[in-house]
């Protein structure tokens, strides 16, 4: 059962990676414009 200590530690680290990804995305301004990229992807070039 003591493997749980390790597994929970790993799961927390994985979760922290996602938290870091979220913070990076906010800093990068990815949530500032949620309309234009949706249009842009439809342009042919």
């Amino acid at each position: 059962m003591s493997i749980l200590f390790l597994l929970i530690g790993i799961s927390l680290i994985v979760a922290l990676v996602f938290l870091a990804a979220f913070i990076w995305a906010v800093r990068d301004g990815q949530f500032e414009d949620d309309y234009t990229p949706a249009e842009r992807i439809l342009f042919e070039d």
Partner: protein
Amino acid sequence: MTTVTATTTCLHCNDEAGDHPVIWNENIFCCEGCKMVYEILQENELSTFYQLDENPGFSLKSKQQKDYTYLDDPETLSKVVNFQDENFTRVNFTLPQIHCASCIWLLEHLYRVNPHIVQSKVNFLKKEIDMTFNTKEISLSEVANLLDKLGYSPDINLQSIDEKQNRSANKTIIYQLGIAGFCFGNVMLLSFPEYLGLDETIDPQFTRFFGLLNIILSIPVLIFSARDYLISAVKGLRFGQFNLDMPIALGIISLFGRSVYEILTHTGAGYLDSFTGLIFFLLIGKWFQQRVYNHLSFERDYKSYFPLAAMVLKAGKTISTPVRELRPGDRVLIKNQEIIPADGILINGDGNIDYSFVTGESHPVTKASGSRLFAGGRHVGGNIEIELTQKTDQSYLIRLWDHDVFHNAKEGETTRIANLAGKLFTIAILIIAFSTLTWWLQFDTAKAINAFTAVLIIACPCAVALSIPFTLSNIARIMARNKLFLRNTNAVENLSRLDNIVFDKTGTLTTGMEQNIHFEGQSMTGEELEMVYSLVNQSNHPKSRMLAKHLGDLNRLHVIGFAEIESKGITGIVRQATIHVGSAKFIEEIIGHKPDNKHGLFIAIDHQVRGHFLIKQAFRDGVEEVVKTLNNTNDTALLSGDNDKDENRFIQLFPDKNRRKFFQSPEMKLDFIHTLQKNGKTVMMVGDGLNDAGALQMADIGMVISDDTNNFSPACDAILDARAFDKLPALIQLSRGGIKIIYLAFLLSLTYNIIGLSFAVQALLSPVIAAILMPLSSITVVIFGVSAGNFLARKIGLHL
């Protein structure tokens, strides 16, 4: 007479091409501007523009090329650009004309039109473009000119430069929310064994491990995510004012403190799941409330109305000079439709100044050389030259902004309701908590502490704290769907408390553009009308043009001896008859006595007065019904900066003489509102122009009517699209209903609190009950608030 009346539409903008279309390569355009854009797009193989959206182009008919050379002045340049080195320059422009997918496509393919533009990226919601271009090959003014030529004129004004620095949105709440959410999820996961009752069957080592992890995960929530609640509670305490954050902070501290104590002393599992969840939900409510309308600005002052530069004449040359560097004594050239940058004296040309925006006067005034002109007026007509007598910020009409009302921020974020609820809750919670404490102290100290903290935890008004932002934001969202945009959710509450509504006239109750012309006097024969028409057709004066347009397409007769007497009228001989058209004063000089009316455009044929044309501004659609409906529940008043020649039209709507005022200066409007407020009234000012700015700022609700929400509107609490003017009474009704919904939501959450308290005072509160009751009450209260708002809106007949 032959007219081309086939319904031909412009290939670029889809507008009616009119009688004189521009034809190029067998394609029809309404104007040269549209043709040019089409040409540029064809040359650069950018015709996809026309395929992406139905109506991509917009008419360039009334547009004229602007001069952007002032942007190359190093000081101005450094303020406008975001970044510049010897190779690349990066700049961000606001382009209010962006409106469809084709715009995005075209603006992001600018590199095809000019290869020196390295990259351009559009933010559609903010109507902004972010561009990088080659510093050596192309100048900033050339880039601005290119955008302008395509019809997207960069919106550069004094204010946009001043506020360049603090324009990046405040992202703190997003980080707070993210971290609270992360910690909440993980704490819940680690609390699972306890929910399922497993903690007794598994190794106590795990219970301790999970408990410690929970504490570690909760610390960032307490010191970062919950920071604002604690700070606000301390502030309230220091100033002796109750606010809703106080009971919340009490709850937060007891939740965290008791949980840490329980975990460290191994007496229990703690309430850290409830704690992190509470903060997470509260922050969602706060974030929901803070969402803003990106494309609207509620903060503008006169600076954003003025251009960045003016053309200064020096030694026969015109130099584009930044407005803040204009000095008294400078000679400035003003072209058609330009704004006078500072007070001055007209030196050359016929001034015809439209002050409707700054003073509320409905008609342009004609000025002869030597007369004083005030900053803010818009010149209509040929070029004029003025000599400045003041700097821009010391100009007569600008000095209004020195008034205190502009320096004192309006009430903060919290609403009255929230403060009231905060007061009641804080008092009630403290009374119940301390009574419980003293009661239990007689028997058992440990249980006494337990019950005391349990009361603080369970009575925490999180459901109330959530119902306010969600209900009000939903009401604000419905209002935005119906074209009333509120600056913040406080405005909903202020709107509901109104008892006085003050209207401006020009541009608010009347439209600025449509004119209603009618003739009073002896009716004229068809031939006489033709003679008058032929005469006014010779003149470029706006009133003459208006009259010519009103008379329609008549035969043009030959006019001899045409003369225009500045600021008086015009005269000429048509078919041997001498015709005079002009003001009452002009006619008085011709016929030797005063005509029977003061206002209007008089017609005299062979020195006989035939009558006068009255030019009235048209009422907005539905004004009469709206004012009448509002009269039932509010006191209304009319304050106009214009003269009183229209007064008769308003007597029915505003019967009280003391509440129907004309010749009002901006300061008088402000004082009127202030007097009402001193008598305990809650006032809404409905206006549109700079002359209302003081009153809008002073009023509890300043509402601006706008024909185009992209255009300049002074600082205010609400912007109402003119097309939705007739919905105003319904929108006010909705705000009143919204406040009632919040009171009902209070009752609902009180029920939950009483249930929770009945456990707490008996020292029976377990973490599971807290973990169930808290989210359950919050969610039901939020759902109730939102759906009741939707129901109400549907009942009143508003769009959802």
